[in-house]
């Protein structure tokens, strides 16, 4: 490919690519990299969620994208322009911080007006814009309140309005919902989605809440130990996790450790039907993963319909979760491996108690076989 061609494809791609992260490392000098070789691109108008456990490097990656820190290696571009090309106050990035960082000496409306004033928008249009964005986050009428006179969820929404009002090219959210109660959090998640769709602003959200990631995002990146484990759409991520870590982190998953025998998973001599996900050598250590909703459950001695593997088990525990039950069933044939199984009708009669004998089974497609890596997930 000639240089001219390279330049052309580059500019062509920037027309729709809002964020491109290319081979980024971040080293705080602590011995391990906080972010290692991160690469991804995000198209304009999409909602990306970075998901991962505590300490996995999510905030670090977000701060790098915001330009608050400079990566040790690699390059970050926003709409084709290097992030370091402009000082922070000239960039068009709206950020909602983990601790909100609202201005306590201003009212809610003044907080929202602040970026308009700083960015020298026309003062004549400012009141209308402030009103419009307060309405957008459903805070109309509360503009005159000081920050400490608002509830946590309301403060949250002031922070969102403040980050959106100057119509930034990119919106960054750092676990802004983490401190809220579950009900409010789920409400705000839908709110986020509504606002984001309404304005079409490219958004990157950081969270460790898998549900939030699935609900709000167009795309998800799962991180662990500073490394991107998988980048995919929510449904794809849920159906086809790339490795055991992702399978464990998203959804409720049970694991079976054994060896890959060329076609199935061999657990202590018992062959378990399954589908290898990664390239596996016959005889190599492998880990099977199956979701709680994919394990079938039946009375002992019965034949479970369409199940490629069927085994006897004993109910170890029954967990009531409101709209469903979770059975924890141990399977003696698999070295007392524990399987978690959903039961979606807690009011039904055919319930098993702890200690009851049951039969469990699954289809070949539902048990995913991963290469076994490192410590148990």
């Amino acid at each position, binding site marked *: 490919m000639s240089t001219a061609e390279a330049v052309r494809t580059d500019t062509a791609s920037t027309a729709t690519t809002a964020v491109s992260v290319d081979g980024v490392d971040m080293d705080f000098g602590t011995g391990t990299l906080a972010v290692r070789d991160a690469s991804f691109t995000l198209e304009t108008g999409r909602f990306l969620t970075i998901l991962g456990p505590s300490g996995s490097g999510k905030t670090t990656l977000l701060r790098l994208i915001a330009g608050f820190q400079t990566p040790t290696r690699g390059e970050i571009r926003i709409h084709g322009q290097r992030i370091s090309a402009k000082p*922070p*106050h000239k960039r068009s990035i709206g950020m909602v*911080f983990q601790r909100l*960082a609202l201005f*306590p*000496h201003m009212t809610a409306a003044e907080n929202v007006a*602040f970026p308009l004033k*700083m*960015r020298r928008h026309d003062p004549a249009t400012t009141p209308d814009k402030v009103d419009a964005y307060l309405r957008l986050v459903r805070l109309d009428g509360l503009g005159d309140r000081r920050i400490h006179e608002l509830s946590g969820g309301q403060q949250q929404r002031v922070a969102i309005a403040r*980050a959106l009002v100057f119509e930034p090219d990119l919106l960054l959210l750092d676990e802004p919902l983490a401190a809220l109660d579950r009900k409010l959090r789920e409400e705000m998640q839908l709110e986020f989605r509504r606002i984001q769709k309404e304005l079409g602003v490219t958004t990157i959200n950081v969270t460790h809440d898998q549900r939030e990631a699935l609900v709000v995002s167009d795309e998800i990146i799962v991180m662990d130990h500073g490394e991107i484990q998988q980048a995919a759409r929510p449904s794809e991520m849920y159906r086809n996790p790339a490795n055991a870590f992702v399978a464990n982190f998203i959804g409720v998953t049970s694991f079976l450790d054994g060896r890959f025998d060329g076609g199935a998973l061999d657990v202590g001599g018992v062959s378990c039907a399954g589908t290898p996900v990664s390239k596996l050598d016959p005889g190599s250590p492998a880990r099977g993963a199956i979701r709680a909703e994919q394990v079938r459950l039946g009375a002992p001695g019965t034949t479970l319909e369409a199940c490629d593997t069927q085994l006897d088990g004993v109910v170890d525990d029954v967990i009531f979760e409101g709209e469903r039950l979770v059975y924890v069933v141990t399977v003696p044939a698999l070295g007392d491996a524990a399987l978690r199984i959903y039961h979606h009708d807690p009011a039904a009669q055919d319930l098993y108690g702890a200690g009851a004998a049951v039969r469990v089974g699954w289809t070949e497609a539902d048990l995913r076989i991963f290469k076994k890596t490192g410590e148990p997930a």
Partner: protein
Amino acid sequence: MPDRSFRYPLRWHVMDALERGADILWPATFSRMTGWLLAAPAILLVGLLVLGLIQIGDASMHVLDTSTFRMSEAYTLANYADAFTSAVYFKVAWRSLLAAALTTALTLAFAFPYAYAMVRTRSATVRKALLIALFLPFFIGQVVRAYGWLIILGNNGIVNDMLGVVGVEPIRLLFNFPAVIFGLVQYMLPFGVLMLAPALTAIPEETEIAAGSLGASWPRAIWHVILPMARPGLIGAGIVVFTLSLTDFAMPAILGGGSQDFIANAIYDQFFRTADQGLGSALALMLVALGSLIVGAVFTLFGAGTLALGARK
């Protein structure tokens, strides 16, 4: 044996021992009184102060009989009348107020950037250096420091020597109003910084970064966000610096050389030169009243909760 990584810190052992000791001296059944016990030193101090003030108040209402050098028996307000009508004391009071106001403004202007740099610097070495530079003059003491300035700024001092090198005639740098202000600001700076630093530490750096990401250049972030959020600290520091300057004695005495007396110098003269306890006491009480009035005015103006962040309406 399991490999334990946690060791019970020595400090906790000491705390345990202290707590056992405290239990013997002050059993838990006394706990209802603990609040009073903790407040006891403060109550004692304030009580003594009030007693002293009453004594001074009493003294201020007797005039000095210049023939016998005894205080009169009769109660009178003549001392206050004297003080109020005297052009000299008016000038002294005015000078003290002006100097205190100027010193406060200048000290805050210098202390703010210093405290800001100290709080925000990423380098521990720089922070330590700034702290040491701040505390060193503290250890030297006011009188020695003022004397030091006499040597440096005097007619044969370093500054005039250097001016001489470039051919400038010696300038009188001492025994004038600016010299006193200079000395006071230099003396007050550590107080200002030490009072501002906690206020600035309390402002999360994230708030400043947020201001930047919202479009505020650094100076505008300081002006619109940091300064208003540091207001309680600025007012606290301002009150301390103002009252300390208003009642200062050494700087006007040494750097003013007798020509720049503050109220405290006038009081000193009455007590220890003229031995007119009555007039001295009257002046002292008026100084207390003046200081209280100004501090009270600041509190009413900015709210009594000024020093407690966030309690503002």
